[in-house]
């Protein structure tokens, strides 16, 4: 779009005037009835300056002022990409694994903490990716399965002292069951309706966790969850095995790293199996898939259950790591976070989702001093992403547009 330069700036000015009209009442009128302009003008000034610079750059770009720089850069990047494509993916994956395995050595607790968070969110994102990226079902209540997994381990641990490793499959099974319960009545719906109903289910789960005092201790949460244990060989004195509680952050890091690897491998294998192809067929065109003999209902239910399993595993780990769960951790905004990771990274693409999780967990840590503006930037980024790069940072290779959306 190359409009006449003056017209674009006219639009910009009109937009900025509109923005100031919207901004001023919120910042300019004090509780005691005083009227100020300074605060709102400062914020407005920043926004206006940044948008003016971006617009000017865009204008110059459209006019072709940067071709001297961008053309060689694009060629170099293309060459580098071709070179990287020639290296088999297994090399890249092993490199990533080596870095991940070496990370806890020589780094601070803070870094390990952030890394654990990133890995939890990678698990969640990959689980949601099965539902939304592979099968095309928009699920806005995904965090409910995370909550089911977390509370399953929490309750089993404090009431029956069940070890973490035994609780893990139980949590996964219960989450899958929850996925089926939620999936069964909702899967006849499509698109937007499914989104809003799953959102409703997510809220119901949170409200139940919040209000069922006898079971979940309500908003106070559950304390005193046991950390994972492991039989460790004891070489001092008589040889034997002793039960070791894994309280150290490094140990927790390796547990979640293991879970993440399991999740990645499982999702990858699912993606390139018959089931994965059927899911993709459902995503692209449900009616056509059904006509080709795909049992859409059963496969959609399976997608829900599989997605829930990974959410449940991550939830059980979350309970074991925090050793405290409360309904606050499972609110709608968490669902939106996980969804944003999947969308930001690229739906249906495993490296994309990992990149998305890394970006959304690690970047806010870098900009720690702007903590307050984190969610603001997050919401804005979600919209901007949809406007400029709807397929994500690292789009999946096989992805089409749903035929029902073409008309």
């Amino acid at each position, binding site marked *: 779009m190359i409009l006449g330069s003056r017209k674009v700036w006219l639009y910009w000015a009109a937009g900025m005037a*509109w*923005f100031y*009209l*919207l*901004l001023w*009442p*919120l*910042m300019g*009128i004090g*509780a*005691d*009835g005083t*009227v100020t302009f300074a605060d709102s003008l400062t914020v407005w000034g920043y926004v206006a300056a940044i948008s003016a610079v971006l617009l000017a750059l865009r204008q110059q770009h459209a006019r072709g002022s940067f071709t001297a720089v961008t053309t060689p850069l694009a060629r170099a990047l293309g060459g580098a990409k071709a070179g990287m494509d020639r290296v088999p993916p297994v090399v890249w994956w092993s490199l990533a694994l080596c870095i991940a395995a070496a990370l806890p050595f020589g780094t601070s607790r803070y870094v390990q903490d952030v890394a654990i968070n990133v890995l939890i969110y990678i698990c969640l994102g990959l689980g949601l990716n099965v539902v939304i990226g592979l099968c095309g079902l*928009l699920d806005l209540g995904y965090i409910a399965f995370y909550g089911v997994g977390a509370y399953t381990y929490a309750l089993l641990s404090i009431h029956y002292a069940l070890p973490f490793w035994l609780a893990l499959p139980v949590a996964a099974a219960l989450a899958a069951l929850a996925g089926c319960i939620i999936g069964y*009545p*909702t899967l*006849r*719906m*499509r*698109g*937007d*309706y499914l*989104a*809003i*109903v799953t*959102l*409703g*289910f997510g*809220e*119901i789960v949170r*409200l*139940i966790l919040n*209000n069922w005092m006898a079971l979940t201790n309500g908003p106070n949460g559950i304390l005193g969850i046991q950390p994972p244990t492991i039989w460790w060989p004891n070489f001092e004195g008589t040889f034997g095995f002793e039960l070791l509680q894994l309280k150290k952050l490094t140990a927790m890091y390796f547990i979640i790293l293991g879970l993440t690897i399991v999740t990645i491998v499982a999702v990858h294998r699912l993606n390139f199996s018959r089931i994965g192809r059927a899911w993709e067929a459902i995503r692209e065109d449900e009616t056509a898939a059904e006509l080709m003999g795909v049992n859409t209902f059963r496969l959609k239910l399976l997608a829900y259950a599989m997605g829930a399993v990974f959410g449940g595993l991550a939830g059980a780990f979350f309970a074991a790591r925090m050793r405290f769960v409360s309904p606050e951790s499972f609110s*709608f*905004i968490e669902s*939106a976070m996980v*969804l*944003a990771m999947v*969308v930001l990274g690229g739906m249906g693409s495993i490296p994309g989702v990992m990149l998305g999780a890394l970006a959304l967990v690690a970047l806010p840590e870098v900009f720690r001093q702007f903590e*307050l*503006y984190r*969610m*603001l930037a*997050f*919401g*804005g*980024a*979600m*919209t*901007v*992403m*949809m*406007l400029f790069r*709807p397929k994500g940072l690292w789009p999946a290779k096989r992805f089409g*547009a*749903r035929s*029902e*959306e073409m008309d």
Partner: protein
Amino acid sequence: MEFFIQQVINGLTLGGLYALIALGYTMVYGIIQLINFAHGEFFAAGGYMGVILLTFLAAHGYMETHPWFCLFGALLLTMGYCAMLAMAVEKVAYKPLRYASRLSVLLSALGMSIFLQNGLMLTQGVYDKAYPTDFTSGGLDFGLITFSYMQILIVAVTIILLVGLNALVFRTRIGTAMRATAQDKVMSSLVGINSNRIIATTFAIGAALAAAAGIMIGLYYGSVRYDMGFVPGIKAFAAAVLGGIGNITGAMIGGLIIGMVEIFAAGYLSSEYKDVWAFIILIAVLYFRPTGIMGENVNDTRV
């Protein structure tokens, strides 16, 4: 028995407010098939504009000299503000995506919702903001039951707005254009309707109604909070679906039903789970009768 009648009155008040919010959802969905996630934030912004304007007026003493003038002035200004906000959001976040996939628009709306909610939090603070209390006291006492003045005001304003909206949609040229655009965007633009302008108008009207609901809920409960848009937004959406999404009369009926059910569930069953009922109704309606009470037969792709 008194308790029952009192609950009916409370239910009508709350239901009317849900109906006002639901109208915005249903009109926008009817015209561009989008669940406008940011709609709840227009409602919250309305509540905040109300508290800002009324405290300003109260601080300068106008509330004592011209109370009704202040109240209706604040209501109109708030509605105008939210209409402007909605038009800006539509222009920035939805209009460029008019021909993109449905998922993209939905996520863009979700992003806008989070953005606006946090914008409110950053400019107005995380704590509850209290409304001036000049209006909330007093009421008509009929012995067994009482109407508070607030409830009378809410019901009256709601009825006026609903009647006005009906007149706008079914009696004016712009309403005809809106209905034509909702039925077929291409055909209506062929007969000379500027569909982009009509869509922006629809957003503005819906947001103005939500803003009116926001200011009245603020007056009713006495305070507003930056995240107050989320739960009423979902309930209003449930109301819109219950009535048959895209159907204006249906949204009004659906809002009243959801309000009644919530009040009765809180009064007779348990108040902890009162928020659950709207979701359960929503799921049940979508499962058994996806077109809602008043909805016409929509084809497979819509549901």
